[in-house]
C-alpha cells in the first residue's frame, strides 16, 4: 500500500515538471530548440499519468485532457479539442463492450439519450470551431470551474427511489435488472422524469461538442439524480453514451481539419495505458487524497484557461 502511494506521488511529481516545461515552451515557442520527437514523448508521459489519475479520481480522461493539454502545451485549442474528443471516444469504445455485456450499461436507456446528445454535439462542435479562440477558452475555463463545483457539491445516490416510471420511459420500456456484486442482489430499476432528462442532454451534447471534454461529469448526475437510474447503471451507461456522442462531434473536427495525428495518437495510447495501470492500482488501493488532487488539477487548469482566454496569462 505504501509503495503504491509512493508510486502515485512520484508520477504526480513527474507530471509537474513536464507541465512546466510545456508551459515555458508554449509561452516562448520561438526560443524552443526541443527536437520534434520530444513533444509526442512528453505528451505520451503526461497523458499516461492523466490516465492513471482519471481512473483513481473517478473522472473521464477527456475532462482532464482538454484543460491541461490546452493550457500548458503549445498546441492550438482547436487541435486539443479534436484530440480530447478522440481520447474520450476511444476510452468509451474500449469500456463499452464489457459494460454492455455485463448489463451495467443499458442500450435502451442510452439510445434515446445518445440521439439527442449526438445531434446537439454536432451543433456544439460547429459553434466551437466558428467562435474566436479567446471566447471558447474563457467559456472552457468557466465550464471547468463549474465541473469542480459539481465534483465538490453534487451528491450521488446508489439506488434512487423511483416510485413510478413516467409515461415516456414506460412506452420505451426503459427499465432493467442488474446484478450488484457487492451484495449479491439483483436490482430492478426504472426511471422517471425522462422528458426533463432528455432536455438537459441538449445542453450536455452542445457542451461536449464545443469543448471536446467528454461529458461523463454531466451525464452521471442527470441519469442518476434526475432520472433515477442506479449509480452503477448511470456511470456505465454514461461511459457507453460517450462512444456515440463523441463520434458525431469527432467527425466534425476531423472533417474541418482539426485533428493532428502527432497529437491524437500518443494521447490515445498514453491515456489508455494509464487507465489500465490505474485500474490495477485501484484494485489494490484507492488513495483518498487522489480525488482532491484531481479537483486541484481541474481548478488550476480551469483558472489557467480562464486567464488565457481573458488575456491575463498567455
Amino acid at each position, binding site marked *: 500500500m505504501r509503495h503504491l502511494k509512493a508510486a502515485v506521488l512520484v508520477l504526480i511529481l513527474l507530471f509537474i515538471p513536464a507541465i512546466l516545461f510545456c508551459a515555458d515552451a508554449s509561452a516562448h515557442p520561438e526560443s524552443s530548440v526541443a527536437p520534434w*520527437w520530444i513533444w509526442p514523448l512528453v505528451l505520451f508521459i503526461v497523458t499516461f499519468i492523466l490516465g492513471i489519475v482519471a481512473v483513481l479520481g473517478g473522472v473521464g480522461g477527456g475532462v482532464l485532457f482538454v484543460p491541461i493539454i490546452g493550457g500548458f502545451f503549445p498546441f492550438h485549442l482547436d487541435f486539443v479539442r479534436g484530440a480530447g474528443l*478522440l481520447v474520450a471516444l476511444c476510452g468509451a469504445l474500449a469500456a463499452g463492450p464489457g459494460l*454492455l455485456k455485463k448489463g451495467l450499461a443499458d442500450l435502451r436507456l442510452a439510445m434515446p439519450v*445518445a440521439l439527442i446528445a449526438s445531434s446537439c454535439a*454536432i451543433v456544439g462542435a460547429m459553434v466551437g470551431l466558428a*467562435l474566436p479562440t479567446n471566447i471558447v477558452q474563457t467559456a472552457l475555463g468557466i465550464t471547468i470551474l463549474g465541473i469542480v463545483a459539481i465534483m465538490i457539491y453534487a451528491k450521488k445516490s446508489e439506488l434512487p427511489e423511483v416510485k413510478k416510471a413516467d409515461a415516456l420511459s414506460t412506452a420505451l420500456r426503459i427499465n432493467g435488472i442488474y446484478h450488484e456484486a457487492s451484495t449479491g442482489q439483483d436490482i430492478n430499476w426504472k426511471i422517471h422524469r425522462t422528458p426533463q432528462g432528455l432536455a438537459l442532454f441538449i445542453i450536455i451534447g452542445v457542451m461536449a461538442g464545443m469543448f471536446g471534454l467528454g461529458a461523463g461529469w454531466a451525464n452521471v448526475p442527470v441519469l442518476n439524480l434526475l432520472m433515477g437510474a442506479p449509480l452503477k447503471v448511470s456511470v456505465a451507461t454514461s461511459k457507453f453514451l460517450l462512444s456515440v456522442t463523441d463520434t458525431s462531434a469527432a467527425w466534425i473536427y476531423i472533417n474541418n*481539419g482539426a485533428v493532428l495525428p*502527432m497529437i491524437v495518437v500518443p494521447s490515445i*495510447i498514453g491515456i489508455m495505458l494509464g487507465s489500465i495501470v490505474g485500474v490495477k492500482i485501484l484494485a489494490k488501493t484507492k488513495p483518498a487524497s487522489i480525488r482532491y488532487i484531481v479537483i486541484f488539477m481541474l481548478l488550476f487548469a480551469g483558472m489557467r484557461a480562464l486567464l488565457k482566454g481573458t488575456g491575463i496569462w498567455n
Partner: protein
Amino acid sequence: MQEPHIKIAEEQTTYAGVLDTGMKAGLLIIIFTFAVYVFNLLQPHIPNAEISRYWSLPVHQYLQATGVHAGWSWLHMLGKGDFLNFAGIAFLAGISIICYIRIMPVLIAKKDTAYTVIALLEILVLVLAASGVLRSGGH
C-alpha cells in the same frame, strides 16, 4: 462475463460484440500507422521536424499554410505517413455507425418500432456528421 441469470437483450449483446471487435481492430490500426509515421517509413506531407510550426495555429490558418484540404481529402493522401493515420482514426470514429447498422435487423425482427426509428435516426445523424457536408465557418 454477464451474470448467468440476468438476461441481456439480443441487440445489446450484438452491439457489444461488434464494438469489441471494431475497437481492437481500430487500436491496432492506429498503433501500426503511427509507427509508420514517426519512423518515417512513409514520407509525411508535413515533415516531422516542421509540424511544431503549424500546431499552434488556428485550424483554418493551418489548412492554408500546409495546403491541406478539409473533409475526406485525406483519402487521397493515404500514401503520406501523417495522413495514413486517418485510416485508423476514421475507423474508430465509424465503429458506432457499424454497430447501429448491425442491430437494425435485430430490432426489426423484434418489431420494436420505436427503437428501430431511433437507431435509424442515429445512423442518419452520424452519417451526416461523417459526410463532411457540415463545415464550420472558421474563426
